[in-house]
């Protein structure tokens, strides 16, 4: 089949028609060639990438070399990994040795990292084939991928609309059939929201579950790497490969990866699912209707729906937009024209710093660096950053209270389906509101994921978000699998 000829939206969302699980099994037993899988993706890229712009870089030659090697290993009877021949796209804020890594910023243009991120090594060790580096909002700051220095990514389901962000390129690459799966990073919703807007499964693991080593840091106490896939089983397998302790990340949890693929068939009988009665308003009716349908589906499968309260949820957004810029202003201090990428020459060191950073960073990044620097500066720290950390505690307390009554919570992932280009670019606060349901999880360090559930306005996919406590991935995936079965 041609991977690009889908007529309806549902066809396109699964246009390659192959899953991670199927490819890995078929390549390993020799019934499918890794090269053939890759060539389908490359054909899809040739057909539609100019329109979608999912990638900053397509690494076709490296990928062909790699796929050929995997096929040769299978022919020779060598043991291949759990992701043999699975094509994967990487968000361009993950370091790839010798392959340009830009964070979609001019300040890093041309930089080739001297090492691979831990997640990249783990995927490679299991036989994954990397297709390319995907576009993002510059330094992962945004909710629409409109903030990239290299131009926006378009939603493959409707190219007049955004794919979400900041991992918009990673979501678009899978939705367009350019790769079987991808990795994104999620600081305030940057995996879950684009997954919802592109009709995919997207996972934000518990903080510390997946190594951040080699992920260019944005908000270090919030960032987590996670997968985009077309099925829940694919996400479970990807998690098993990328999660688990890494001595190179000092915030990595001292425990092995959770076993999730075995959870999927367990069902939700007897589980307690939380419904937030004081949820922030502003979600569109089509999204709320699907959320209700999701509750109904879980009830029908034997779960109980219980009311919980999150009185501090709306304040999470406010706290996040202090905490994340504060951490970013510190993390982005390293981009100073000395060690990586761009330098604007000047007569002395300080002038070089100021000129390089002025030329290299885009507007949104500058805005957040300024806000964060201000919030951390003498005289303002207690009034802003100190207060934001206290609000963060209230969010964690709300969750702790809620999880005495339930095992997981359902919310919309995004208040709306994919929106049109330019709808929110003129008003930073409107853009930030996209993340009102996803941000609290990052502040608390918990697990969350988005699964596609039905369609809304204009036939576009709706994402339902499953929230779970820290290390709650197993029950979270049981709920996700049940919602997928109910589709």
């Amino acid at each position, binding site marked *: 089949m041609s991977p690009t000829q889908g007529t309806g939206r549902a066809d396109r969302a699964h246009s390659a028609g192959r899953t991670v699980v199927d490819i890995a099994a078929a390549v390993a037993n020799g019934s499918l060639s890794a090269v053939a899988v890759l060539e389908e993706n490359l054909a899809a890229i040739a057909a539609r990438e100019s329109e979608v712009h999912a990638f900053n870089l397509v690494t076709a030659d490296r990928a062909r070399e790699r796929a050929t090697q995997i096929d040769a290993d299978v022919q020779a009877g060598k043991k291949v990994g759990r992701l043999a021949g699975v094509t994967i796209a990487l968000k361009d804020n993950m370091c790839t040795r010798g392959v340009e890594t830009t964070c979609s910023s001019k300040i890093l243009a041309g930089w080739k990292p001297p090492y691979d991120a831990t997640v990249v090594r783990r995927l490679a060790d299991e036989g994954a084939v990397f297709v390319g580096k995907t576009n993002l909002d510059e330094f992962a700051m945004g909710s629409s991928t409109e903030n990239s220095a290299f131009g926006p990514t378009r939603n493959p389901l409707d190219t007049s609309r955004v794919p979400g962000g900041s991992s918009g390129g990673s979501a678009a690459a899978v939705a367009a059939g350019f790769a079987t799966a991808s990795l994104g990073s999620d600081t305030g919703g940057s995996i879950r929201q684009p997954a919802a807007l592109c009709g995919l499964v997207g996972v934000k693991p518990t903080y510390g579950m997946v190594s951040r080593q080699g992920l260019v840091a944005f908000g270090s106490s919030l960032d987590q790497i996670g997968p985009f896939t077309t099925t829940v089983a694919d996400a479970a397998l990807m998690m098993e490969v990328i999660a688990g302790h890494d001595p190179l990340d000092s915030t990595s949890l001292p425990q092995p990866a959770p076993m999730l693929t075995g959870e999927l068939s367990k069902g939700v009988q007897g589980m307690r699912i939380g419904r937030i009665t004081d949820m922030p308003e502003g979600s569109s009716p089509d999204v709320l209707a699907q959320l209700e349908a999701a509750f109904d589906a879980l009830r029908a499968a034997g779960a109980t729906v219980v009311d919980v309260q999150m009185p501090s949820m709306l304040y999470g957004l406010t706290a996040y937009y202090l905490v994340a810029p504060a951490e970013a202003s510190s993390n982005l201090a390293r981009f100073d024209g000395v060690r990586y990428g761009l*330098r604007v020459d000047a007569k002395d060191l300080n002038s070089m710093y100021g000129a390089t950073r*002025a030329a290299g960073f885009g507007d949104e990044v500058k805005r957040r660096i300024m806000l964060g620097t201000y919030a951390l500066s003498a005289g303002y720290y207690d009034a802003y950053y100190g207060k934001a*950390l206290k609000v963060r505690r209230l969010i964690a307390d709300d969750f702790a209270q809620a999880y005495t009554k339930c095992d997981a919570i359902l919310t919309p992932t995004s208040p709306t389906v994919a929106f049109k280009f330019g709808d929110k670019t003129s008003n930073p606060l409107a853009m930030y509101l996209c993340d009102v349901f996803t941000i609290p999880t990052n502040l608390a360090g918990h697990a969350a994921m988005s699964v596609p559930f039905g369609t809304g306005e204009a036939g576009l996919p709706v994402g339902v978000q499953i929230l779970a406590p820290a290390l709650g991935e197993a029950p979270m995936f049981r709920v996700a699998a049940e919602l997928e079965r109910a589709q």
Partner: protein
Amino acid sequence: MPEPISRETVQKVARLARLDLNDAEVERMTQQLAGMLEHFRDVDALDLSNVEPLTQPIPLSNVLRDDVVAPSLDRDEVLGSAPAAQDGRFRVPPIVGFEE
């Protein structure tokens, strides 16, 4: 809450952040930061007096490794991606002696 942010404060913060802003950017940034900080006043509705700040989501402290020699990054590879290098080091413009 502190006073609304001024142009002068924005210019000072830009210096702290080593970010050269032109006049138009200072103007725009002053307005946008004021708007965002105004939004932050929402939290004044909360009683935070007895709330302990949450600095990190999952408490782990003093993660140390054994002090043994292990392979590190390749120096030439690291310097090869830098804007300027010389004699095995990053090369930078003069640090002192150029004050006007």
